[in-house]
């Protein structure tokens, strides 16, 4: 038998080829305000540029809503309120279902746009953000005609016109978290996205036109802090919902005191991720990584304080270091990118300042992943600090970046007291295979969300919100309807 012999190729390092998402998305050069069902030029005549944080390239001009524009939007919402709030719940639900379906149909477009504008990896906008946006509208659609079952024995009425101000870390998802329960409960809205990430909210406005949502039910105003201030202080707003920094939240609370406006705040966090020695360490490493490096750490519930039981500290550091080397940092549009660009230059400067402070205060900086970062755009290598005490600045203040503080504890008591020693109380993670310990520790942690043997799991059916300076009010789940109803 004559068979030509072929030799096995010598093993070479197998690398992934570039895998850019190429779905074409067009962006208008100028993007107007969405008021009363129409795109209108700003009366302020002011515009600002939105850039791609991964390349510093300008994407579009966005309208700045001034006082007169805010007034027009609030009036449109007020005008739409009587009819919308009296519409049968089952009819309102139809619009929400249609919005959800249309978002699913245009999911790829939304994902690409979100990544272009915000810098997060396409993998995350495609697999996490946009699916959750659709899920939120679906979920709230289901409640629209069942509100009396959510609040048994009470009569449920809408609050009225809602002013909603959202951050840049999950732009469209935050819009969905605010808009879906509000309109499901019969309110009308004026939404202001963050100035660095306006594009997906404006694309959502297109969807609202497509599904023929009645004019004025949702109005979308772009702009920076001044626009937000005009909106928050408008006298005809019945309710204000804000997600963002604790400082702004405190200011809003002061300014709205005595006005009769209802307020919900979802603010910052410095969440504790607690690893006990009896945890499944290999899996806990995954929880640490998804806890702090997901979305470049731009996550209000990021597990930015890691507490490790002393006997497993060395193992955790060793495995975390190795795991971080497999994180792929770079072009957010590449489907294999794990960590994308920092959302803005100013946020990058904030993060870099915190890293400097951490080093200056004696922390040991570990940059396990020292990949070559792109020369243009805003980039920060994921990193963690050891030799950190709970009193260090970086262990106390919210950094909102891919920076982790690793600390230790010896007993559950110490873990709980260290975790609770923070002005914030948004989320926490508990890692142990011992069921009784999970419950014992979790019930004593002051945090709105506690994940056991997992982290950063989100679902529209699950309420989200904080303790202490992390805010009040819940979003998502049945509890997320409450901030948008009057119970009589």
């Amino acid at each position, binding site marked *: 038998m004559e068979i030509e012999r072929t*030799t096995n190729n010598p093993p070479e390092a197998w690398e992934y080829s570039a895998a850019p998402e190429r779905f074409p998305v067009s962006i208008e050069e100028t993007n107007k305000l969405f008021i009363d069902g129409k795109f209108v030029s700003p009366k302020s005549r002011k515009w600002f540029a939105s850039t791609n944080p991964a390349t510093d390239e300008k994407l579009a001009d966005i309208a700045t809503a001034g006082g007169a524009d805010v007034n027009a939007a609030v009036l449109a919402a007020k005008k739409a309120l009587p009819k919308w709030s009296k519409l049968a719940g089952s009819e309102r639900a139809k619009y929400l279902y249609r919005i959800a379906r249309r978002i699913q149909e245009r999911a790829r477009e939304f994902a690409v746009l979100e990544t272009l504008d915000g810098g997060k990896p396409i993998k995350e906008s495609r697999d996490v953000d946009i699916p959750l946006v659709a899920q939120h509208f679906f979920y709230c659609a289901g409640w629209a005609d069942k509100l009396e079952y959510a609040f048994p024995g009470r009569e449920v009425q809408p609050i009225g016109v809602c002013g909603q101000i959202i951050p840049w870390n999950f732009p469209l998802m935050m819009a969905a978290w605010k808009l879906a329960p509000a309109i499901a409960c019969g309110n009308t809205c004026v939404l202001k996205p963050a100035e660095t990430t306006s594009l997906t909210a404006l694309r959502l406005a297109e969807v609202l036109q497509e599904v023929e949502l009645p004019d004025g039910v949702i109005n979308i105003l772009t702009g920076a802090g001044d626009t937000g201030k005009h909106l928050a202080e408008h006298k005809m707003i019945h309710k204000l919902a804000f997600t963002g920094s604790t400082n702004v939240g405190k200011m809003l609370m002061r300014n709205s005191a005595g006005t009769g406006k209802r307020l919900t705040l979802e603010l910052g966090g410095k969440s504790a991720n607690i690893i006990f020695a009896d945890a499944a360490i290999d*899996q806990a490493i995954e929880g640490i990584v998804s806890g702090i490096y997901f979305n470049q750490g731009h996550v209000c519930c990021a597990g930015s304080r890691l507490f490790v039981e002393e006997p497993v500290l060395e193992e955790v550091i060793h495995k975390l270091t190795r795991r971080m080397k497999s994180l792929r940092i770079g072009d957010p549009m590449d489907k294999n990118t794990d960590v994308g660009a920092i959302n803005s230059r100013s946020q990058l400067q904030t993060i870099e300042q915190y890293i400097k402070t951490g080093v200056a205060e004696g922390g040991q900086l570990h940059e396990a992943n020292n990949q070559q970062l792109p020369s243009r755009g805003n980039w920060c290598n994921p990193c963690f600090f050891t030799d950190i005490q709970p009193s260090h600045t970086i262990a106390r203040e919210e950094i909102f970046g891919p920076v982790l503080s690793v600390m230790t504890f010896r007993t559950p008591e110490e873990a709980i007291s260290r975790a609770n020693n923070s002005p914030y109380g948004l989320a926490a993670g508990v890692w142990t295979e011992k069921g009784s310990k999970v419950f014992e520790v979790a019930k004593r942690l002051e945090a709105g969300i506690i994940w056991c043997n997992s982290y950063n799991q989100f679902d529209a059916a699950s309420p989200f919100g904080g303790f202490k300076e992390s805010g009040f009010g819940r979003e998502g789940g049945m509890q997320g309807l409450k901030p948008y109803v009057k119970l009589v």
Partner: protein
Amino acid sequence: MQQQVDTVMVEQRALSFTRRSIKTESKIQGLRLVLSMIDLTTLEGKDSDEKIRSLCRKAITPWEGEITPPLPSVAAVCVYPSLVIIAKRALEGSGVNVASVATGFPSGQFPLSVRIDDVKKAVEAGADEIDMVINRGAFLSGHYGEVAEEIKQVRIACGDAHLKIILETGELETLENVRAASDLVIEAAASAGPIADGEVFIKTSTGKVSPAATMPVTLVMLDAIQSYFDKTGVRIGMKPAGGIRTAKQSLHYLVMVKETLGTDWLTPTLFRFGASSLANDVLRQLVRQHTGRYPANYDFSEA
């Protein structure tokens, strides 16, 4: 202390590997690598000498068509002990190994002396690699010492032949069991003498029990291999077997190995696929990349 395993995050991580986009050059390179890692397998009662010879021919030259650079041979042909002699003759000088299942495959429900004899006969007939099954009955009833002792004796009986230890994860059911069994069998193999890199493999399944290889199960076994490497510097091999039928699935496994154990393990000496139909799907994809069109299933030999 027994290593803890938590299913939710294992599944989440395993799923993340399937989300990698492997296209163009990396796909071609990856599929060539996969082809070189296949243990082309036939384990049927009706296996004939003719079928084994046909399989061996395919193992050496997976596809007769023109393709540059030439396609690699597969790693090994895996057969029952009685057919080792046929395979050995057919593969002579090709560089393709003969692997034989032994130890009363697939159930292992035979007296130890019979199982040891099974191994010796296969080695004498020329097997380069022995795929053994562990005593799941003893493992599940907590007789770990018995499981370990048997593995030690089998490894001694192997002589120079490499040993792949099948956990039959479908019967172990839980990921905790998979991890405990992985740690146990590696230590047991080491107790028979020093292990060179790739001399001992752990393998998921016989292919006779469902579920066979899955990504989460393989991930847990890779974690065990990683731990043993951290402790000793010895590289244990990994062989998922059963249920991996498509080129796409096989690339997911490569991604998993690359992102856990690293590229050191991306070689046939440390990673194998136990499969019968995988090779043809890999060939289809490779020919498609080469010619620009998909060949039909019947364009490839079955064996």
